[in-house]
């Protein structure tokens, strides 16, 4: 089969990924940024030698579990904490040791943090007031920001009288009115319902499109990350696990952590047996599994203990045509989700999750207890180092 899209995917897999931001100006650059939090016995490395580049108009999402250091990283960029060691450049200028109020960076904080004693317009004008702008200039800029974010009607209200949507827009306006070179967003969707999330995300996308400054958003929610970002940076325990566009992270996770954190994934542990050209054979509890390996990943094959990852929707169930990596098993759980059915199949003490698209015309029924066979297409298996 010769499908153009498939070819493109192959190309990216072999490392010739085209970076859409390659020719843009670098605005923010982090070099070896490290931060130790706490002292003495409680000291722990919150951020560990992070290198990161944000270019003009790039939407970067820092994705990671609670306590992975993403908030600390944002605080370092904002200047609320000082990296030690490490350097932070904004527009090629070293800002590493300048405090927050002297950096051209603004943040939308977790839970928005509007000043409760100030009205919306006073909140939005706060940054300009700190810059000692003239009052008529402040009024003009504030008005423009309020109009941009649909807040004119509530301009005189106190934060206590706002609804959640107005809250988030006010926080956004307050940060943007300062015309930062980089906008940081610390879990802005936390605690918002789905509808508001969607509205905020599209608003962010639209704003970012017009402003051409990099946005750096940090979140625990991978759906949010997949939806908006140009680049996703997956962080764990203070380190960057993998960075790249959403599709790359999803299709080619670099390690089991990324595979498990971005989307759902089956991880099958095994032992490397042998390699024949692009074909690698791994011994697992299920039996021998062969997978095709792009050339650039060759060095991975030398590892003895390896993990195989495959997304649930790539697992084929009862597919007569497939021949490779075919195993038998029993369905233990069925979840009917409308567009797809999620199955858990147990085979030889290994539980494999599969997501089968529901056919259009006839209702195919899966029952717990059914014996089925499933297969892993060699192209869709990802080989990585076991942890």
């Amino acid at each position, binding site marked *: 089969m010769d499908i153009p899209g498939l070819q493109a995917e192959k190309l990216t897999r072999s490392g010739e990924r085209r970076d859409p931001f390659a020719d843009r100006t670098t605005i923010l650059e982090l070099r070896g940024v490290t931060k130790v939090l706490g002292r003495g016995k409680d000291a722990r490395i919150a951020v560990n030698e992070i290198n990161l580049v944000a270019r003009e108009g790039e939407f970067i999402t820092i994705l990671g579990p609670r306590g992975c250091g993403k908030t600390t990283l944002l605080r370092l960029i904002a200047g609320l904490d000082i990296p030690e060691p490490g350097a932070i450049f904004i527009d090629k200028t070293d800002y590493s040791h300048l405090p*927050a109020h002297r950096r051209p960076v603004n943040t939308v904080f977790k839970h928005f943090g509007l000043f409760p*004693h100030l009205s919306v317009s006073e909140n939005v004008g706060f940054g300009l007031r700190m810059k000692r702008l003239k009052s008529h200039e402040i009024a*003009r800029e504030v008005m423009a920001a309020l109009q941009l974010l649909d807040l004119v009607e509530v*301009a005189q209200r106190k934060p206590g009288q706002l609804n959640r949507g107005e809250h988030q827009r006010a926080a956004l306006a*307050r940060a943007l009115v300062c015309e930062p070179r980089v906008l940081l967003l610390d879990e802005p969707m936390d605690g918002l319902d789905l509808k508001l999330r969607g509205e905020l995300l599209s608003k962010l996308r639209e704003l970012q499109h017009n402003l051409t400054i990099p946005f750096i958003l940090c979140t625990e929610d991978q759906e949010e990350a997949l939806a908006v970002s140009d680049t996703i940076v997956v962080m764990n325990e203070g380190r960057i696990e993998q960075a790249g566009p959403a599709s790359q992270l999803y299709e080619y996770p670099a390690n089991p952590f990324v595979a498990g954190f971005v989307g759902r994934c089956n991880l099958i542990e095994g032992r490397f047996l042998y390699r024949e050209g692009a074909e690698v054979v791994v011994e697992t509890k299920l039996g021998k599994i062969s997978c095709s390996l792009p050339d650039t990943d060759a060095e991975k094959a030398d590892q003895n203990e390896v993990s195989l990852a495959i997304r649930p929707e790539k697992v084929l169930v009862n597919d007569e045509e497939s021949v490779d990596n075919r195993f038998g098993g029993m369905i233990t759980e069925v979840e009917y989700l409308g567009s797809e059915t999620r199955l858990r199949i147990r085979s030889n003490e290994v539980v494999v999750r599969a997501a089968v698209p529901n056919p259009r015309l006839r209702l195919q029924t899966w029952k717990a207890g059914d014996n089925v066979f499933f297969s892993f297409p060699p192209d869709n298996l990802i080989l990585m180092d076991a942890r």
Partner: protein
Amino acid sequence: MKSRNKKFKGWSVEHGVMMGRRGHLWRSMWLSGPGIAWMTLLLVCPLAVITWMSFMDRGPNGEIVARFTFDNFALLGGKGPFGYDPSHLEVFVRSIFVGGVTTCACVLAALPLAFFMVALPNRLQRVALIMIAIPLWTNVLFRTYAWQILLAPDGLLLTPFVKVGLMEPGQHIYPGWRALMIGMVGCYLPFMVVPVYTSVKQIDWTSGDIARDLGADKMTAFTNAILPQIQPGLMAGIIFVFLPATGQFVIPNLLGGGKTFVLGNALEQEFVVTHNWPLGAAYSVFMLAFVAAGLLLHTRMTRNRQEREPMVL
């Protein structure tokens, strides 16, 4: 069904018993009744009597003559029998001055103390609160007498100052303004610290970070984002301190040494010594009106700030 009747909305089920509007009324009557009766008997009635009295005339032997007159208030305003005489007005000014200085001193002392307390570990915070409350367990009178002893010439508190050379031996600050202020602040500080501490404890400290992020240096962030948050506690403290401090007369009496004739002393004099009850009543009413006006102004101002119409930018 009666409960479906639109005019009758009072049905509710409480403890398995259906209650109508009349039931609710009865229950609230006998629950709040004692309180209302108490307030009527001991607050509203005396106030009415005092107000009535302040417009009455005084007989030659100190009896109240039921003849409507503004003389008492005119007297307070400075219309003496021999022309302008501000002595009564001065009492007010002095009282408000004493109250105001006490309040300012309490604010200045309470702010750092409250921040310090919040910085303590939780267990110590409780200890600190108790330590602040302990003086309140003794009567003001005792505490004031204690100050007399401590502040006396060569007293316990002054000896170190004398030794260092800051004070001459035998020099005293009691009786006098300084002793009065020490006694007043010592008495009213707890009433300022507790509400201020409560607000400081509720401060959202991330506001400071946010202000810094928006371009405020550390000091500006503190004054613009942290301090405004304790305004409600500060306001409560000011009310708790200013009002009683203005009416206080025991401490000025005992520590002020006769130079500090304040409102409380004036009341005592009119009611007990000179038996001019209508004038005393006028004092009370005048002060009450002053305080009520202040409070009203404050609530009006804060409410207006919240409900202001959209301003034209």
